[in-house]
């Protein structure tokens, strides 16, 4: 009895210690400031990140330690923050995710007097953002979303193509290239589109506009209005063209489209400008001639921006970090690392000596870099910003699932339908027989006394 009591006490102490160790180590935080950044993976220059502690020390006279955390999709980030109640100081989501965070009352209005460098942000980008997010209606109140974030990177949605295979005639079809409108036999089965409803929907709507297939009530809308129109009519029209597209496609990709383009497994890919520029440079090294364009009719311009959640522990450090990100030389360092276009005014970048030195170091011709319309497109009414689908999101996702499942056309499982059903039937029968066998077996044993 004694020994078992002792054992019990030992076990309890052991368990307590086991659970206490991590708790203690969690409390044992250093006395310096901590800044928790939650950003896309691979979306910042490590050198720029390292440089912040020096900048912070100069500005405040205090040490800062950065905890850098990453996410892979906006949806994942939203779940972690809103359902997982994670406590971070700074987030960098896409425009529509910022809108969602705002609608969930999750982010705070920024104190722009502490982000002096935000004047460096490209005016054209600011304007096109304000045109749609300037007067959001949330809970009956009009809210200016531009007061809640500072843009970080931006770009367009367009088409990455293999210039050796795709001909002039193909390109003339604009978004129709994704539908192989010119019936180039080499492209059939070599076209990729993103497995992402927002991007494919934009492409489908623009294709409808090109071919004058828009539902009558939407004919006179601007590009921005068009890609933000998500109603039953437009969804039905988009569904029919997206389903018709299937026969030309290689498939729906998430991350490996660029690799397929470089290896020649695909010739056309719906891509974002930053990814496309990276693929083009990588393709040059491999001897593949890739190019990128936004069709004549127009397209979608997107951006990511810094926001501060309401439960942030260190708002001042977060504001200072945004300010640091808006420095021209830091912005260009980030662009060099990740290939996307930063939100700083190209005029300001070009007049900054350090920026020019960095560009030279990376073997870019300054004039070429800034005049490349793939990197710096003209932001006018042809490029529209896309807001969150809102309540229509479920309908849009359901439409996209139907398209992917191939229910839009009559093919379905195609020739395989009959064998697949037979197999499913056999599997079900086997399951039922096993279940019956076990039940009968159990019933047999029970009456026997032990």
């Amino acid at each position: 009895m004694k020994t078992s009591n002792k054992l019990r006490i030992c076990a309890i102490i052991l368990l307590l210690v086991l659970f206490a160790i991590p708790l203690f180590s969690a409390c044992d935080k250093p006395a310096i400031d901590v800044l928790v950044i939650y950003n896309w993976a691979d979306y910042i220059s490590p050198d720029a990140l390292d440089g912040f502690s020096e900048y912070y020390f100069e500005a405040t006279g205090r040490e800062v330690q950065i905890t850098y955390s990453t996410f892979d999709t906006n949806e994942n980030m939203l779940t972690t923050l809103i359902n997982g109640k994670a406590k971070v100081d700074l987030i960098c989501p896409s425009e529509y995710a910022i809108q969602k965070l705002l609608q969930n009352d999750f982010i705070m209005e920024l104190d722009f007097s502490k982000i002096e460098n935000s004047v460096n942000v490209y005016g054209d980008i600011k304007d096109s953002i304000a045109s749609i997010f300037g007067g959001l209606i949330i809970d009956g109140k009009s809210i200016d979303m531009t007061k809640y974030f500072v843009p970080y990177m931006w770009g367009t949605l367009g088409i990455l193509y293999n210039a050796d295979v795709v001909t002039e005639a193909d390109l003339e079809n604009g978004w129709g290239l994704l539908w192989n409108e010119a019936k180039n036999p080499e492209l059939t089965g070599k076209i990729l589109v993103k497995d992402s409803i927002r991007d494919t929907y934009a492409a489908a709507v623009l294709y409808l506009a090109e071919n004058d297939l828009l539902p009558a009530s939407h004919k006179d809308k601007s590009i921005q209005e068009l890609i933000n129109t998500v109603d039953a009519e437009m969804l039905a029209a988009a569904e029919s063209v997206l389903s018709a597209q299937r026969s030309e496609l290689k498939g729906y990709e998430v991350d490996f489209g660029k690799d397929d383009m470089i290896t020649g497994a695909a010739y056309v890919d719906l891509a974002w400008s930053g990814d496309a520029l990276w693929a083009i440079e990588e393709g040059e090294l491999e001897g593949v001639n890739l190019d990128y364009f936004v069709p004549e009719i127009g397209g979608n311009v997107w951006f990511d921006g810094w926001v501060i959640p309401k439960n942030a522990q260190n708002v001042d450090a977060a504001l200072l970090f945004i300010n640091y990100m808006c420095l021209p030389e830091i912005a260009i360092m980030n662009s060099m690392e990740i290939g996307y276009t930063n939100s700083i005014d190209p005029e300001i970048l070009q007049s900054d000596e350090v920026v020019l030195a960095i560009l030279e170091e990376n073997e870019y011709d300054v004039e070429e870099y800034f005049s490349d319309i793939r990197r710096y497109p003209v932001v006018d009414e042809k490029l529209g910003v896309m807001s969150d689908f809102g309540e229509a999101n479920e309908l849009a996702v359901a439409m996209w699932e139907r398209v992917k499942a191939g229910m839009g056309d009559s093919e379905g499982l195609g020739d395989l339908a009959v064998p697949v059903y037979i197999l499913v039937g056999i599997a079900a029968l086997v399951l039922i027989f096993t279940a019956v066998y076990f039940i009968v077996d159990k019933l047999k044993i029970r009456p026997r006394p032990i």
Partner: protein
Amino acid sequence: MVKKVLAKAYIFLILALLYAPIVLIVVYSFSNSSTFSFSQGFNFDAYRSIFTSSKTPELLSAIKNTLIIAAVSAGASTLLGSIAAIGIFSLKKRSRSLVEGINQIPMINSEIVMAVSLMIFFVTLDFPEGYLRLILAHIAFCTPYVVLSVMPKLTTMDPNIYEAALDLGASPSKAMVKVLFPIMAPGVISGLLLSFTLSMDDFIITQINKGAATGINTLSTYIYADARLKGLSPFWFAIFTIIFVLVFVILLIVNVNASKRRVKKHENF
């Protein structure tokens, strides 16, 4: 004769299907490219870039986190599971089969359900993010496997041995240490190894419970994040190759030792 050839061919076909992907990874680990091409020829740059790439600090911290979490949660769940197995073993028949059934549920249950319920649990009770959550979560899903690997050792044990120890004057605790533990040992060790590898491999539960505030990543969640922008960094192929070779060597050593022991046993008798 034909039968023999067919049997051999079948075995080789299965082996080829199993190992061809791994062989490909090993081959591409010498190409230093993320696009499966040998444009830069055959080189060891991918291996070098494990230590020199700009992502090295993140990669090494992911490896460190993976090992710490796997070691701690494997240790803790082995302890918990072994003790639980002894307890379950000494229960009465009816309650024992009930508890054994309950023990099966987490294993059969879909991992995503477990992951989300753990997340809700941690958020509701406001556990600090980071190691604590991940280690507790990993202990939770590893422990049933330890119980499962220890139980057979106990059920196949001759119950008279333990009683004989008691009859010969050993106290229950001494009998446990001297008799029960050695019999359980192989099951405990295989449970430890099993939970270590399960914890290392886990993605879904880790991804959903890692939170954001500490920036913690394990190998599996880091590779998922890294593939997003520029495809997989070439060093991943090098890492996969190293992992494969390590596991292969360990298996080889274990098996050679085991067969040696078997030979020795035969000589002794």
